[in-house]
């Protein structure tokens, strides 16, 4: 599904990703862990198409397509979703409005009919209930004045509505209380199927007790330095990154 080969990325002449490789097959859940500043969010943002990051070398293929050729909105329509580490506040744009526009853009891309207001309303309310999100959040401006946990839940809510093929969750667990963590994990688990993959970026093994990954990768200084199964996360939790 996703193949990242020898990816080099720089910002302002500073190299951040230094030969990154990762291959994700359909249905798999990969976790990326690593110290602060190692480049995890950079990878996530590059996958979503952020222009400030310059790809100097390497390639990214997504479902057979050259991802680097696509604009951010095309990537989204092709099925990539990024849950931001720091969701952006957009005052004046209602959450529900953004989501309907986003969903309908995706449907239009697939040459499907746009959803009617009522249909969308029902869909949104059902998913919100499951995530324990207050319905008022729909009417409020995107992330504006949301608490840290509300922002993260809102990202997962958007993911559920947009039903991506590959979801990249960048520290979606940080800032969540224990109950919210379970709710978010359930939200992810309920979407797991043989055609959908996840890249879960986290600092804590705790999340991986709920979202059990197929692979765990350790990222240090812009590269994957070790990969393994879920037990690797436990090992990191005990020993830290000193060995790398």
């Amino acid at each position: 599904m996703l193949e990242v080969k020898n990816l080099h990325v720089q910002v302002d002449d500073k190299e951040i990703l230094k030969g990154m490789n990762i291959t994700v097959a359909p249905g798999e859940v990969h976790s990326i862990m690593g110290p602060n500043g190692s480049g995890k969010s950079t990878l996530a943002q590059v996958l979503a198409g952020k222009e400030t990051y310059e790809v100097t070398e390497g390639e990214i293929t997504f479902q057979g397509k050259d991802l680097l050729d696509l604009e951010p909105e095309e990537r989204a329509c092709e099925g990539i979703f990024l849950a931001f580490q720091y969701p952006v506040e957009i005052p004046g744009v209602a959450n529900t409005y953004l989501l309907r526009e986003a969903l309908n853009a995706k449907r239009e891309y697939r040459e499907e009919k746009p959803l009617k207001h009522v249909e969308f309303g029902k869909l949104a309310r059902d998913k919100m209930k499951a995530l324990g999100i207050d319905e008022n959040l729909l009417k409020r401006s995107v992330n504006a004045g949301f608490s840290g946990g509300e922002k993260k839940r809102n990202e997962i809510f958007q993911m559920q509505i947009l039903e991506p093929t590959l979801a990249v969750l960048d520290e979606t667990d940080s800032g969540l209380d224990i109950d919210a963590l379970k709710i978010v994990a359930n939200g992810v688990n309920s979407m797991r199927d043989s055609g959908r993959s996840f890249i879960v970026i986290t600092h804590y093994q705790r999340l991986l007790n709920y979202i059990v990954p197929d692979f765990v990768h350790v990222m240090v200084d812009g590269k994957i330095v070790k990969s393994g199964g879920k037990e690797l996360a436990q090992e990191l939790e005990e020993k830290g990154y000193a060995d790398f």
Partner: protein
Amino acid sequence: MAIIFDGTRESYVEGLSEFLGSGQEDTPGWVADLRREAISGFGELGFPTLSDEEWRFTNLEALRRGSFSIAEDGISDVSKKTVNSYGFSGLDCLRLVFVNGRFASSLSDAGDAGEGIVVKALSEAIREDGDLVKGHLAKYADYEKDAFISLNTSYFEDGVFVYVPDRTVLEKPVHVLHVSTDEGRPLFINPRNLIIIGQSSDAKVIEHYVSLSQSVYFSNVVTEVVCGEDANLEHYRLEFESRKAFNFSTLRVNQQKNSNITSHSILYGGAIVRNNVHPVLAGEGCNSDIYGLFMSEGRQHMDNFMRVEHASPHCDSRQFYNGVLDGRSKGVFHGRILVHEGAEKTDAKQTNRNLLLSDTAQIDTKPQLEIYNDDVKCTHGATIGQMDEEALFYLCSRGVSMRKAKIIMLRAFTNETLEHMSIDSVKETLENTVMKWFEQRLGNGDGS
């Protein structure tokens, strides 16, 4: 026999006797006296220059060089259909139409305003309600200190007169449509409006300025408002003049005890535009909410001049102005808050936010607080910036195109001011106009 103003100070001063002799013969003596008295202000001041502190960002050289004339009595043929196209869908309102400053009764419908309420052309009110008009006309807008008010007071043709007696609600909004047409020569048009709201009464007035052509003219508007004790007024100024027009307007409000005004100014048309909003919170416990949105492109120049005058204790004022500037256009926001010595517990707030869509657009924003009392709360803030890249990326990452993302962001920005309009159909009409404007700005491509 048009009176020609060739741009010199003398032509505007001396033209008055000819103006008074042609078509003004049947107006009462006190109006003629007022006109004669008022012109001396302009005689002394002339048009402001860049060295005038209040005009330092707005160059009037082109106006000074221009030659203008007063429209003759006969008005251009404007059809009812054309007038209807400037209406607000579904809005049940009273409508007064003026063409090149002259009242067009056949296009107007001020039918049934309600018991004791007067909604008519100012020219009629001067004849029929002389004492009422005389008690207020030119009593607030100072023709001695302001060149444009002086010119308007001397040369005004017509405008709306609204009188709402005490404890009365004017149910229907009053739509005052000023239409300008191409008469083959640049006109000098002076609309004059007078709005008197009695104690504990309510009204909504929409001043709407449109042009059927893209011709050059000089339109110079003065509106005086008296808002009685406990009264509420919502006022709209929708400026959609020709792209070549010089447009100057002054809204001068006198607020009595516990009165509330909400003012909305939309600046859209015009080559050089100056909008003065000047409420005086004269009685205790008044509230003024002043909203504005200006959109400029090409070489348009839009100058927003606020003067909020707190003359009594316990009054609140809010100024909230947003500007969107494209092309090589220029904007000015000059926000003056004046707190008089006796006006303790004043709470005054001013915000001006500007979005630049091009590298060549320019905005000068200048707060000016003049406070003669220690027990007050006055705040101001201004921002100038491009569209938020992080927010655009966030929207695109959800599948929305860059063009659409920009439109969404612009809409959010303009709605910050539009959302305060209480008349939905006006708000919706403006939202649509704003959207069309954005779409033109972004072109047909992806807009990135």
